[in-house]
């Protein structure tokens, strides 16, 4: 395998790791709110979070590109803050990926929170645990399978993205060229052998991820 391929693999893993960590931080409060709220906005927020499931990545990428571009609101802001522009940078890629993979993390965690039900939280309250305390000492441990699924799916989905990377990140070696784009380049250049190495690696990786998901996360444990 050549250096550009290894760079692409390294960049992909770095991107997926950063995105997964951010998604757990951003997605958990959203999932908790969606699981617990009786607000009329629940449906709307849920639908917005789920949009990336149905939208072509190019559509999402296009709007993010416009928003983060020199004339977009986000772009204006980042320029004012002296951060420059986000498109075609690694941070820009991270932000786009967070949006794109959000439902894959929020939904398993939301389902896990919902499956806990009201009772354990009430029990914790009658045992002097504040809501914040209850969240960390009861809700999060009981929703652990959901967090595991969410993290694995978010990571794997980020590794597998292509369209949104092209829209936001372009194809800059070492900066935004991830494995999926590298495969595309190899195919364009008719370097099928190299393409095979990376593509085969992706198949094996994806299979192992799903295997882990189904092995470590069987039907919900029986609750006492």
């Amino acid at each position, binding site marked *: 395998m050549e250096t550009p391929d290894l760079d692409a693999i390294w960049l992909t893993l770095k991107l997926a790791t950063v995105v997964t960590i951010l998604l757990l931080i951003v997605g958990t409060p959203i999932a908790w709110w969606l699981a617990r709220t009786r607000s009329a906005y629940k449906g709307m927020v849920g639908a917005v979070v789920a949009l990336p499931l149905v939208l072509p990545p190019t559509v999402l990428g296009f709007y993010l590109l416009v928003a983060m571009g020199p004339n977009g609101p986000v772009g204006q802001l980042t320029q004012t803050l002296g951060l420059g522009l986000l498109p075609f940078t690694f941070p820009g890629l991270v932000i786009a990926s967070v949006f794109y993979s959000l439902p894959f993390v929020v939904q398993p965690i939301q389902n896990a929170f919902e499956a806990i039900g009201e*009772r*354990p939280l009430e029990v914790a309250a009658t045992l002097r645990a504040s809501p914040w305390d*209850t969240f960390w000492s009861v809700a999060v441990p009981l929703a652990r399978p959901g967090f595991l699924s969410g993290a694995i799916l978010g990571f794997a989905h980020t590794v597998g993205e292509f369209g949104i990377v092209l829209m936001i990140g372009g194809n800059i070696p070492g900066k935004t060229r991830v494995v999926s784009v590298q495969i595309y380049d190899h195919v364009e250049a008719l370097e099928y052998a190299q393409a095979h190495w990376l593509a085969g690696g992706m198949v094996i990786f994806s299979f192992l991820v799903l295997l882990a998901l189904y092995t470590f996360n069987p039907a919900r444990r029986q609750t006492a």
Partner: protein
Amino acid sequence: MSNAPHPTIAARLRLARPDFTLDVDLTLPGQGVTALFGHSGSGKTTCLRAIAGLERASEAYVAVGGEVWQDERRGVFLPPHRRALGMVFQEASLFPHLSVRANMEFGQKRASTATIGFRLPDVADMLGIGRLLDRQPAQLSGGERQRVAIARALLASPRILLMDEPLAALDLKRKLEILPYLERLHRELSIPVIYVSHAPDEVARLADHLVLLDAGRVVASGPLNDVLGRIDLPAAFADDAGVVIETMIAGHEPDQLTRLEFGGGTLFVSQLEEPVGTALRCRIHAKDVSLAMAPPGQTTILNCLEATVVEMAPTDTPGHLLVRLDACGENLLARITRRSADKLGIRPGQAVHAQVKSVALLA
């Protein structure tokens, strides 16, 4: 139990639901077991949850032991985790991710250190779960789980223990396994207990004070026997009419009978294993008591008490009357036909002989 005056529990609650309204004004004793008894849908669980703060009643005043937990007129509402209570739910609801010991320590660690609470080994011993501490909740039987849940609630140093049908989810065998522990709590616990139940036997066995709820309202509230001895209760409660008496084993007879003494006289039951001097609660159903004007001579019924008729009222069974009797200060109820009453001329103030066909032992 200490001799200090026990502060009372006040709960005035009004909570409207689409299908029913809870509207109660309760003053309960600050010690012993108060049973909230009613049929399903009577609002007893809602009442308990409102006291705990798990449901927010729109108009409410809740004070336990002089501490105001809720006073909506002054905008006071302590959330459940700031109320010093222990609650046991119908299902044990142990935290499945924690060991038995960690479950029990959950509330203990969070309870205010100012209150001197129970010690874990003592509570574990009292509930017979000492050897289960290192197990996981999934490895316990239903009865064991519920005992751990009770221990967990006690270790949070509550000022009051709320129990929402703690036996309802258990089969008969588990119930019988756990009842002795509840009786032990009843004897040894100095904090008041509010016990929600729809099982008359549990109430008769455990309660000191009884509140009858029907359709969200209090039908009767008072010491157990004052309420059980009433003959004017709605039909819904009349099926189980009967009183509970506190007796003591006075002797074991040679012919395999045990003699029980109580304020109203002497009763004989099948031989018991408990030693002389043991206190024993018994229940006498109104339908098991018949009346005679003269001391019955030629009868197989062994138990006969001298009593005076206090009052009479019709029951929901056509042609029947419920008669309240005073047997040397103890309440007794008898259910007889109107025809017999007319024939014998039974009326308030009359001395009668109450024949007791059967005595249900409760402990």
